């Protein structure tokens, strides 16, 4: 057992922190709320740094690394509320594609590494349902239906869609430019990660780009990466809150010296570390060939549940200890509150995943 990042992972994190502090400061993230194209200025840098290809096999233009590496990076992108669609492709769609052994999937992975904006469509008409295939059906030649709240779909060239096939779930690789695909941008909490409902009107696809597959392991990885981003959000919110309560004086003292404030931030710390531990654990379990798929599902469920809950708690606590200033546009905290909410509800909320963890425990119980 070892919970430490290796040297390469640590330098990746250090580099990401340096780059994003300069290239993705809160002022630019704030500007991204009104300017839907603002993310493009940073995209080439991200692709050149190799972040999009982190977990793509070397033969397909990537670095061939694992979920732990994705988690190592996603934590840092969460700290800076990265607007660019890195996680939708490299973090969410990529791990699912990696579980599929087909030329189309490998092409799509190579595309992710090369900077083709790609995303993952799982939620159906009722996104509360814990069924990734809901809403879309594949009849052997065409894809029909609606996928909802797809991250970065309005920016994407390629959609990785989980749909119901005749014998269980399939994964379809669909160019957004394909006839019959309609991407309907919706107003959502975090415009830096825009959401869209995507309608498929009998979209004709080459059967080679649709594969029947057990989607569990790929989606568990996506959930774990999403959890890591939320841990990064918690981490940065806590830093910002600590800075504030250490310098803000009322009643003649720094307000961080008052227990009512100190104890709330201590609770944020515990929630954050609980989520971080479970996220690292899930990443390691998913990267470990000796662990079962069921272990991976339980670990990813605990990670996503804990991180979703922690991020909301951290963001709300951050606002509370700042007071009125945190309710303003000019203050940075709403950027984190937006990402916390978006991430917490994406790929299954905390109730969904605690339920999965509870069910997994009962199944494994002798």
């Amino acid at each position: 057992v070892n919970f430490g990042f290796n040297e390469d992972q640590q330098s990746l994190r250090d580099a990401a922190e340096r780059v994003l502090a300069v290239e993705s400061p809160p002022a630019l993230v704030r500007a991204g709320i009104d300017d839907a194209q603002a993310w493009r200025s940073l995209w080439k840098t991200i692709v050149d740094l190799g972040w999009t290809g982190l977990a793509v096999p070397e033969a397909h233009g990537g670095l061939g690394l694992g979920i732990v590496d994705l988690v190592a990076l996603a934590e840092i992108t969460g700290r800076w509320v990265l607007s660019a669609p890195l996680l939708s492709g490299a973090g969410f769609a990529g791990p699912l594609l990696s579980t599929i052994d087909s030329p189309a999937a490998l092409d799509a992975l190579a595309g992710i590494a090369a900077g083709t904006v790609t995303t993952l469509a799982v939620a159906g008409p009722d996104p509360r349902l814990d069924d990734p295939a809901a809403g879309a059906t594949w009849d052997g030649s065409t894809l029909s239906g609606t996928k909802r709240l797809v991250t970065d779909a309005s920016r994407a060239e390629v959609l990785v869609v989980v749909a119901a096939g005749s014998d269980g779930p399939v994964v379809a690789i669909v160019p957004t430019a394909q006839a019959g695909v309609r991407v309907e941008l919706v107003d959502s909490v975090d415009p830096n990660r825009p959401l869209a409902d995507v309608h498929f009107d009998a979209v004709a696809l080459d059967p080679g780009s649709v594969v029947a597959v057990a989607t569990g392991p790929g989606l568990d990885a996506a959930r774990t990466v999403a959890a890591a981003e939320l841990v990064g959000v918690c981490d940065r919110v806590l830093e910002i809150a600590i800075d504030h309560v250490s310098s803000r004086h009322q009643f003649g003292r720094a307000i961080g010296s008052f227990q009512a404030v100190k104890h709330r931030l201590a609770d944020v710390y515990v929630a954050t570390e609980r989520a971080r531990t479970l996220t690292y654990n899930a990443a390691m379990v998913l990267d470990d060939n000796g662990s079962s798929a069921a272990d991976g599902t339980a670990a990813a469920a605990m990670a996503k549940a804990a991180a979703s809950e922690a991020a909301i708690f951290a963001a709300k606590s951050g606002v509370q200890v700042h007071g009125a200033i945190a309710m303003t546009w000019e203050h940075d905290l709403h950027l984190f509150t937006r990402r916390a909410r978006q991430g917490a509800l994406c790929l299954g909320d905390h109730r969904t995943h605690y339920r999965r963890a509870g069910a997994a425990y009962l199944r494994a119980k002798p």
Partner: protein
Amino acid sequence: MDITETEAQREVRERYRVWLDGFLPADYHARYAHYRGDWALRKAHQREAFEAGWLMPQWESELGGQSLGSLETLTIRLEAAERAAPKLPNIQGPNVVAPALRLYGTEAQQERYLVPLLRGDEWWALGMSEPDAGSDFGSLRTRAVRNGDRFVVNGQKIWTTQAHQSRFATLYCRTDPDVPKHRGISCLVVDLASPGVTVRPIRMASDSSDVFCEVFFDDVEVPVENLLGQENDGWGVAMASLNHERDMIWVMNWVDVERGVDRAASSLDGRVGDDLLVDLGRRVADAAAIRLTGYRAVTDEIRGGQSREFLMLKLFGSEALQRTWEFAIEAAGPEAVIDSELLFEDFEGLGATIYGGTSEVQRNIIGERALGLPKG
């Protein structure tokens, strides 16, 4: 990062399992509720664990160990907890006093006290809290006045677990009243059989195995060589002891959480509504997070990193424990009110957020030491 066990972890766990299986009665797990109160078994377990090197795995063989590293030691501690190995009868002896003796004791003190303590032949109490010095430990008033080669001790301690069964206590006394309060404290090893010591057990609200006592000191003479650590450095000894105590407590909390989750799941039997399943998942995640955060702290420390996470384990573990038994009661439903075992667990759990430093104190520690917030 690697979630798989190292070869060393696997090897040592296997050897420990063989030893524990050989020691425990065949029906131990089936009749755990009975054996939990079997003091003879618990005492024999400590003695044999000492002889076999499983009591203090990280220490050398003369002191109940086998010089294991910290990762392997944690592996054994968690395995012992998971297998519900008999609890040490005088748990603060090996887990709190012994590390303090090793850290601060003179050669003669270690020679005299360590082995009988570790074998369980002599029990120890922690003389810390006083009627007016609980969380504010630094304001303690029990006085020790130097008189030649002796200290003369007067004062009172309270909530002193097992004092009535203990031979010795690490007693924190004020030795210099003229300096800021935490700088004038010394730690003395006091023989509780000394003239002038009166021990009064306090009747507990529930059937707890850990009985509190009041201890009165009336002109008790303590030889100067019984100073543990430097004169007026009792604060340092106390802080080190509390660190060891927190480290002991979270493992105990973790196993109680595991038992609580198991108990709750057993009483669900089919009535798995959505709300109960969600709550079960929360508690399962708590259990996993406590254990894994312990590993995270240890492996970070081995790598030379800082492990702020150690500071959260006692707070997190004790609060998770209470949430878990609360959930076990909810899962059992209204009949929990006549379930003496559940009620006992719930009641015992109330102490977890008090002993070893209250949750309020733990939050101050996290706020100030992990987060660097200003002191109040």
